[in-house]
């Protein structure tokens, strides 16, 4: 056990699974870097340096750089998974699923079903998401609700280094296609991360704080925003239950609903655009299961339904901040 960044934790999970299972390989644009170039190999280790160093241990056969052909190489990964390998494909930014969405929507998510259970596509697709880095409208989206909507894939969304390693290990060993969402801010987060491998079960939410006043459900990076809000609220004597679902599919509805029943109040914090978002989904779960327990309307904390603006002034206003969560919780309490 030692303190590691999530970047290191993810790299460890990849390395450990590659050591453990020769079928595992990683593939993506500049995932090592320097391919065909005259200078240093492993030049970048991915745009965020997550996969840096794996080339040295595993070589070009298992650390596969690609051209800028997302449909081509995601489809390649899908085919390789069908053939019995365990690809971990990186789509650099979740926004780029636009150019290869068909491979998710109509292919990896549907093969098992439409081929009557005779096909399996055990692929893991890692991607980065989220705003806050001045990357503007085409490189900052959250988009995970779109993937949660599609039957036939699992969706994981870690909020910290420990979960990132455990969930990614589970994803790679899983028999199903898994979309793995890494917020850009995750990489530099530090936490206690065991050196050895471990898995975290999908579909089990983490209850990070327990308090009676309000239940706050937050997703991915928003868990950390909500935790800051929880601290501010605690100083004011308001104690929240904070839940991190960790996977969207499967979703741990039991834990969520139980917490809402206990608190009678719910705030959902979600970096995705608000319409048909995970915040809507969680709110709807309460409406369809136990609206009578609510002592106040649910409050959704999402960005406004606008593209992500570039200017830091606007981007800051766009993103949910701890203060927004504080305000939302107080609203449920009528304060």
């Amino acid at each position, binding site marked *: 056990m030692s303190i590691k960044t999530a970047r290191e934790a993810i790299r460890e999970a990849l390395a450990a699974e590659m050591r453990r299972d020769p079928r595992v390989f990683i593939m993506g644009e500049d995932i090592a870097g320097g391919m065909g170039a005259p200078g240093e190999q492993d030049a970048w280790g991915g745009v965020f340096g997550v996969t840096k160093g794996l080339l040295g241990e595993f070589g070009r056969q298992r650390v596969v750089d690609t051209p800028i052909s997302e449909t081509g190489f995601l489809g390649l990964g899908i085919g*390789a998974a069908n053939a019995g390998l365990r690809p971990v494909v990186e789509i650099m930014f979740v926004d780029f699923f636009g150019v290869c969405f068909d491979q998710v929507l109509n292919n990896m998510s549907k093969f098992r079903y439409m081929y009557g259970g005779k096909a399996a596509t055990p692929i893991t697709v890692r991607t980065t998401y989220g705003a806050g880095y001045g990357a503007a409208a085409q490189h900052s989206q959250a988009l995970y609700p779109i993937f949660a909507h599609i039957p*036939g894939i699992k969706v994981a969304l870690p909020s910290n280094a420990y979960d990132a390693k455990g969930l990614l290990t589970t994803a790679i060993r899983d028999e199903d296609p898994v979309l793995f969402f890494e917020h850009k801010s995750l990489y530099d987060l530090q936490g206690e991360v065991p050196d050895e491998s471990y898995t975290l079960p999908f579909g089990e939410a983490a209850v990070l704080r327990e308090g009676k006043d309000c239940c706050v459900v937050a997703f991915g990076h928003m868990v950390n925003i909500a935790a800051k809000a929880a601290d501010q609220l605690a100083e004011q004597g308001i104690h929240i239950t904070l839940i991190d679902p960790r996977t969207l599919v499967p979703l741990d509805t039991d834990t969520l609903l139980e917490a809402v029943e206990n608190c009678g109040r719910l705030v959902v914090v979600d970096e995705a655009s608000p319409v048909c978002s995970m915040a809507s989904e969680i709110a709807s779960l309460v409406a369809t299961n136990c609206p009578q327990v609510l002592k106040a309307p649910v409050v959704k904390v999402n960005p406004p339904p606008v593209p992500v603006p570039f200017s830091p002034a606007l981007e800051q206003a766009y993103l949910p901040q701890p203060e927004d969560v504080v305000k939302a919780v107080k609203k449920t309490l009528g304060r």
Partner: protein
Amino acid sequence: MSALPDGLDVHGTYRMMRLLREFEDQMHVAIARGTVPGFTHLYAGEEASAVGICMHLRDTDVLCSTHRAHGHFLAKGGDIKALALEIFGKQGGCCGGKGGSMHVADWSRGMWGANAIIGASVPHAVGAGFAFQYRGEDGVAVSFGGDGASNQGAGFESMNLAKILNLPVLFVLEDNGYAETTAASWACAGNPVARAAGFGIPGVEVDGTDVVDVWTKFGAGVAHARAGKGPMFFHVRVPIFHGHYEGDPETYRAPGEVKALRENADCLGKFRARVLAAGRAEAGALEAIDAECAGAAAAAIAKAADAPFPPLESLKTHVLSRSQEV
């Protein structure tokens, strides 16, 4: 016309082409009766392509197909009864009735399935080729696509990937002249073999009415790919004897076009005449094969028409790996 190659299994080739033709022609009749759900796209006329190619393939080789896949399924060794059951949406179909004509597959035979999104399956063949190379196996992956599919971005990305990674992938463009109602001659700028050449991939023109031409050229391609020499491209011109889908009035075709094709561009008739002329088969033996295939197709279709639908529980199985109540 060159001599019949010695290695060609004349009876096997003829039998498989005939089986494909019988199945499609009899399906055409069954569909007209109105008992088949959904959209079906028949392969009749194109048999020399699937058969001349698949004669070279092993069960461990991979084939990725399109919406027009019955012929690929049978030629790759899929079971005709499971095929018919699937097309009727019945229990025991090769996809348990969940896929239908546009998704027929036999994964145990390396037939990875009909895929009804144009161009979508091409990169999967590249993935299969990647897996062969990764494991040091000498398998090959074959990607089938139509002239229409040749304008979808996925195929170009796939050719580039297969070439730079030097993968054993054989790209087959089955050019039947139409994508739905739209002529290939209008929709496809340039030339398919030149497009492949743009990626440095060697390409060949193939006469898809001549199974010997297909068999010979594709044989060389398989050898090339198995030897680790990378991808190849095949532009196979084929006639199509039914409409785009069953029910299509085919008014975009010239009057008499199909009749002329059936008379002059029928791979079965041409092959039959040639093997008889070369003394490589006897008319009686071929007639026996005709009857055998007609019987097999009729039996499969009749059985499928009468079979029960899949159980309702199967609606919610096979979504994810552990069969789950969703």
